[in-house]
């Protein structure tokens, strides 16, 4: 458990677009893994590390996110002192330009609280861990800022942030989306520093007209501060695009990713739905899939992820599919390599075939 630390989750990333999936919601509000939203992982990591003051910032499309977070009770963050704080853009004047003001809410919040340290986490990486070791590393190195990275820099999709480090782990160069990476060390968007330093650097950046806070921006200050890289050796799933999302989900069905992401000793908390148990019919055939509560399955489901309250009609065939909650798939449908968003209806006998390298995406509420 780490003490005296607050958290900031950057719930959206302007560099990442996932088409239909992020049209109605912020990146971190995209459903993941059957019963979660992407933000649940960052939130649970903080809660499981003992962080009790957590702010979530987002610049638009926060309705879906706020529905999900509510009072924070699912993460035990509905507290009298500390707890969960949502920091939407801070509109200070009628001539709101959408610039600068985005950050005033964040800086005002973190200027006034008392914790000594802050952990900032961006939304686009899914990992299940606690930050105890990061804190130990930070103190051992006597670092100003510590940033988490892993070694997938040669194969990860953009945006990548390559860290060039000295032998002692100090960062001496930062490259965003380089053509020829000097290293495979790729930032995971999680950093730790003193809260006062966080506020100081942010204040300075705002005075120069910066409108967005992200870990990459901080790491670039390596000339002025002692910034160290901390290697995360566990599994991290980067959600940088629709394709990356599709691949990450299907990868999470198999070992060892499944255990590393979902079945750790520290749980992943999420909003409770009180669905009925999943019901399997006599004729169904389910293989290599994760199924959530409230599903009613009559057809065949292979290598797929079904969210809550999905119904699959008889003789329907699903292979490599990700089906969000409350979607109904009628009798005799044939779906392959498909992502279907919430509350869709797929009429009887419909055939939707995508490719493993290019899945078909059906937007929220569609009737096919």
């Amino acid at each position, binding site marked *: 458990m780490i003490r005296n630390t607050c958290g900031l989750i950057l719930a959206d990333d302007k560099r990442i677009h996932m088409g239909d999936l992020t049209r109605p919601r912020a990146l971190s509000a995209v459903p993941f*893994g*059957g*019963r979660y939203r992407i933000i649940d992982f960052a939130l649970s990591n903080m809660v499981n590390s003992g962080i009790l003051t957590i702010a979530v910032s987002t610049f638009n499309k926060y309705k879906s996110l706020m529905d999900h977070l509510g009072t924070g*009770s699912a993460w035990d963050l509905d507290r009298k002192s500390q707890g969960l704080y949502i920091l939407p853009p801070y509109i200070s004047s009628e001539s709101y330009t959408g610039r600068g003001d985005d950050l005033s809410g964040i800086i005002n919040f973190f200027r006034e609280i008392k914790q000594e340290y802050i952990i900032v986490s961006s939304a686009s990486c899914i990992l299940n861990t606690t930050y105890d070791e990061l804190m130990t590393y930070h103190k051992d190195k006597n670092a100003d800022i510590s940033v988490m990275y892993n070694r997938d820099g040669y194969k990860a999709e953009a945006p990548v942030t390559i860290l060039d480090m000295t032998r002692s782990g100090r960062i001496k160069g930062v490259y965003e989306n380089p053509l020829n990476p000097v290293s495979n060390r790729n930032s995971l968007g999680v950093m730790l520093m003193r809260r006062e330093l966080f506020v100081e650097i942010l204040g300075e950046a705002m005075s120069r007209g910066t409108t967005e806070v992200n870990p990459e921006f901080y790491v670039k200050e390596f000339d002025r501060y002692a910034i160290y890289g901390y290697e995360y050796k566990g599994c991290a799933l980067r959600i940088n695009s629709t394709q990356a999302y599709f691949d990450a989900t299907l990868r999470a*069905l198999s070992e060892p990713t*499944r255990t590393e992401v*979902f*079945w750790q000793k520290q*749980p*992943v*908390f*999420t909003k*409770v*739905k*009180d669905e*009925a*148990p*999943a*019901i*399997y*019919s*006599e*004729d*169904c055939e*389910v*293989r*290599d*899939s*994760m*199924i*959530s*509560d*409230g599903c*009613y399955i009559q057809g065949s489901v292979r290598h797929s*992820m*079904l*969210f809550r309250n999905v119904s699959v009609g008889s003789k329907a065939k699903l292979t490599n599919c990700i089906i969000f909650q409350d979607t109904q798939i009628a009798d005799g449908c044939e779906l392959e390599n498909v992502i279907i968003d919430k509350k869709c209806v797929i009429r009887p006998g419909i055939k939707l075939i995508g490719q493993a390298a290019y899945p078909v995406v059906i937007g929220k509420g569609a009737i096919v």
Partner: protein
Amino acid sequence: MKKELIAMILAGGQGSRLGALTDTMAKPAVPYGSRYRIIDFPLSNCVNSGIDTVGVLTQYQPLALNTYVGNGHPWDLDRNNGGAFILPPYQHSKGSDWYKNTANAIYQNIPFIDNFDPDYVLILSGDHIYKMNYAKLLEYHIAKGADATIAVYEVSKEEARRFGIMTSDENGRIVKFEEKPAKPESTQASMGIYMFNWPLLKKELAEDEADVTSSHDFGKNVIPKLLAEDRQVFSYPFQGYWKDVGTIESLWESNMDIIDRPRDIDLQDDNWRIYSRNPVKPAHYIAPGAKVRSSALTDGCLIYGSVHHSILSHSVVVEAGAVVEDSVLMPGVVVRRGACLKKVIVGMETIIGENDLIGGEENKEHPYYNKKICSDNITLINGGLILKPDITVPGNCMVSMAQDVAEADQVIERCENIPAV
């Protein structure tokens, strides 16, 4: 603050007919239907009927129930004004008393009820599976100008001998009440759901308490006394799914109804959700070699073997080559590879050993044979046990630590502590 109606759930009974399942927990805390506990049904019915103040009377093995109900948050009963209250028996200046019986339990909590100064009090039991709108029961009670209203359920002539049977006139007024009659005059069975005018009930409870010959039971004493006094006692006929889960056989049947008669209990009903304390677990996983048919599963299960016509609670693991059929597995059960279960109820966190064969035809000579608790070839394995590999336990057996079995016949390898939630 004044409330029109509050509910009191009698959850203190042992439920001894459930055998080893209730060794360490009261009946209302027994897991049911993959993701529920029995008490979720009356609690959810209360909340869905607009009742926001519920007393839960506990006495027998209260730990599991207390931790499960907690502050009532899962049922939206964590409220500033009202909410869920656990009401154990307590010590007072003139000594202390256990709850002697149902009526005495309510009698001892008169000060609690008076806090809310209610017009009506609804008495419920914590051992039935059903969905009922108590608001409609109250409307009926008021429309009839009743002193008390008892919900009744139509049963067959044969079943009627096992229940408290009401005989009503054409207006629904109860004229006769018989406990387990040999020759039932009617087929309306009491569901153990009583709506009372609080001032009257308070007076009746005080009189009943003073009566040294009374056994202080609603069915045996309070209701007959009201009838003898010629009070306005009405029956409220209930239609829909209702099941008493007081025996191993009825608990098994009621679990199977979820897959065999899903439309009857209709757990998917958005207008009448059954709420429960949710485990924090991932969605369940069905492996490539697994086979799951006609079953109900919930979060945290890992299935590598074959599951047919069974109800699995959260975090159940069925290893490759294991076969689970017609069974009810409670939270955290592990079925090791090669094991075969047929019509078995397994309590929480038990580990079934490799290649164990459990269930099937009965064998009267078997040391675990227990026809008092088990029937219809159902086998009961208690929670918190680790069974030895390669053992055979036939149908109608009950396996628990408390049983006196010769060393050579012992099938239990170790006993673990059963977690309360």
